[in-house]
């Protein structure tokens, strides 16, 4: 990997063209090097209407605070640009978001002017293929205020003895803390807000070619929805770590299960109809 090359963009890139281009060029050379690119957005002002739309859809209070997961959405265009780079070693289409970690160093508000930087890191073997991490860093006035690490899996020939990273905690059991009905068009609604127009989220028709019988909910939506439900326990300067398990097929009814007795607090989403189907588990500390 050569010297990192920092490219400052004027505005967040549009995502639809990136997905289309990625879908059209599915053959990849199985290179082992991540292009040494660092993408940056400077002086990012918060669009209050967009913030409100995100807060409503994910169940956060519609106030002036930026939700825990919100900066991820602001940096997602940069992530997609890196992943869609023809020189990127893993194919963008078919990547599965398996894990995500977010640390908030200080609570952010809609008045903060953000500098968002994204780079790829840790191309690694995995039991079911290869993983790569996309690191999103947010600075305000030169100080690091937020960072996120998204782990994506490209399914393929894996290495069974590959290191598996942090092991997720056990899913909390017992009565649901809440039960949510997720509408069939949830993926389309979140696609509008997040810009993540991956066809697996949009409709059954567009999800089928990718191997899903129905559209599936965005992992980042369910992550955000759980963080919103945890309320004050999960806002402000905290670290969260989510492990995505089985996708949520839309429409669906899901149970939120929470265990706040231990440290860290653990929350999970499971199918309401079949409680053995676990969708995600996350920790907050």
């Amino acid at each position, binding site marked *: 990997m050569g010297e990192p090359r920092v490219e400052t963009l004027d505005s967040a890139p549009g995502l639809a063209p990136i997905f289309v281009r990625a879908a059209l060029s599915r053959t990849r050379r199985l290179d082992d090097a991540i292009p040494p690119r660092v993408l940056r957005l400077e002086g990012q002002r918060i669009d209050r209407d967009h913030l*409100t739309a995100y807060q409503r859809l994910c169940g956060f209070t*519609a*106030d*002036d605070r930026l939700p825990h997961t919100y900066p991820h959405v602001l940096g997602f265009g940069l992530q997609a640009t890196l992943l869609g780079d023809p020189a990127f070693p893993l194919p963008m289409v078919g990547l599965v978001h398996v894990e995500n970690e977010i640390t908030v160093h200080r609570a952010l508000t809609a*008045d903060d002017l953000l500098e968002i930087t994204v780079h790829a890191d840790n191309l690694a073997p995995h039991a079911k293929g290869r993983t790569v991490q996309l690191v999103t860093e947010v600075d305000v006035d030169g100080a690091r205020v937020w960072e996120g690490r998204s782990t994506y899996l490209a399914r393929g020939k894996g290495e069974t003895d590959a290191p598996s990273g942090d092991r997720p905690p056990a899913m909390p059991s017992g009565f649901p803390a809440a039960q949510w009905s997720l509408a069939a068009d949830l993926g389309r609604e979140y696609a509008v807000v997040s810009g993540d127009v991956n066809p697996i989220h949009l409709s059954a028709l567009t999800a089928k070619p990718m191997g899903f019988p129905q559209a599936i909910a965005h992992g980042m939506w369910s992550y955000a929805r759980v963080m919103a439900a945890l309320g004050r326990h999960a806002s402000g300067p905290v670290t969260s770590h989510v492990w995505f398990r089985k996708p949520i097929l839309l429409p669906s009814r899901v149970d939120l299960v929470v265990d706040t007795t231990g440290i860290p607090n653990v929350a999970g989403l499971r199918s309401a109809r079949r409680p053995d189907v676990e969708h995600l588990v996350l920790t907050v500390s």
Partner: protein
Amino acid sequence: MTTSLRRAAVLGGNRIPFARQFGAYAEASNQDMLTAALDGLVARYHLGGEQVGEVVAGAVIKHSRDFNLTRESVLGSALSPSTPAYDIQQACGTGLEAAILVSNKIKLGQIESGIAGGVDTSSDAPIAVSEKLRKKLLKVNRAKGAKNQLLALTDLRPTDFGIASPGNTEPRTGLSMGEHMAQTAKTWGITREAQDELAVASHRNLAASYERGFQDDLVTSFKGLAKDANLRPDSSMEKLATLKPAFGKGENATMTAGNSTPLTDGASVVLLGSEEWAAAHGLSVQAWFVDAETAGVDFLHGDEGLLMAPAYAVARLLERNGLALQDFDYYEIHEAFASTVLATLKAWEDEDFCKNRLGRTEALGSIDRTKLNVNGSSLAAGHPFAATGGRIVASLAKQLHEKGPGSRGLISICAAGGLGVVAILEGA
């Protein structure tokens, strides 16, 4: 009269700036705004995670899903989730009535602390389907089986489809509040000039209060708005004179958009507590919540003006507390319309009204107008119905605290349905 009870203290307040309808808060719900106002209060007085005795608030215009609006706002706020809450609604008197209820429980020793408030949105208003359609849809819902449901559906007519949005209209008279007030203004001979003067004073006083930093610890910005959107610091008689009458008819129509409050969105909350609770939390008492009174008038047949009830309530409140109308350092008379304030003042000066209507032996007399709404009122700030009481209580308490112990303030708020809610605060 309340010697056996302990005193209830006003410790501070917080509100979000009031926005004009479809302005900065167009997408904000009542719950969003009330939660924001609560969180600002919590931050200012370090109440994070604290269990407060009770939170009482309400909204005049409410979606049916918001049945537990205040409790839901508490759960969304940084207060301890073990803080109980309930909703009340008394039209534009809601916010002040909430403060009365909280202070009464504190006086009785039932709670040590409480938060009173109110919120209203004219932007995110509930819309209902027409009454005919509603009835028929309920019938469809009741029908057993697909066949009966289809049958019930055939009952629907194209003319059933209509929506009803809540208006500022009295249910029993069909007249808007402005139209009611126009009649009262005419009865009392309130001139256009006097109304415009009051409006200009309101804008100038509120602007000056922002200027001198008075609002700094009363207001927390929200959704990019740092000051009341309706405030016009450069308001003048000349500018107001150009406006056409909005209520009333003919040459005698005096009420314009400039001397009437606009539709606004906003929320306010006030922190109250016992002396001990305040001391334990290191909070200084701004004012004592001394006493309060409510009144209703029969406005249905033109016997009395819709917004004249505070004139009655104040007379009774003064009587009970052995005070004269002139025994106050500050008067906060809610400016629903400039003419409301002026008609109320004129009524108190009128011997005939005071004798025949209020049952007094003489007129209550006039007040020193320099003591009236000294930090501006609803004409400048705007009037999100239930949020006005909290705005006034917090601001008057602070003003009385600046004046010093023993200073006295009178609050008078008129409300739909011919209601009036009034209260006395004493500086600490």
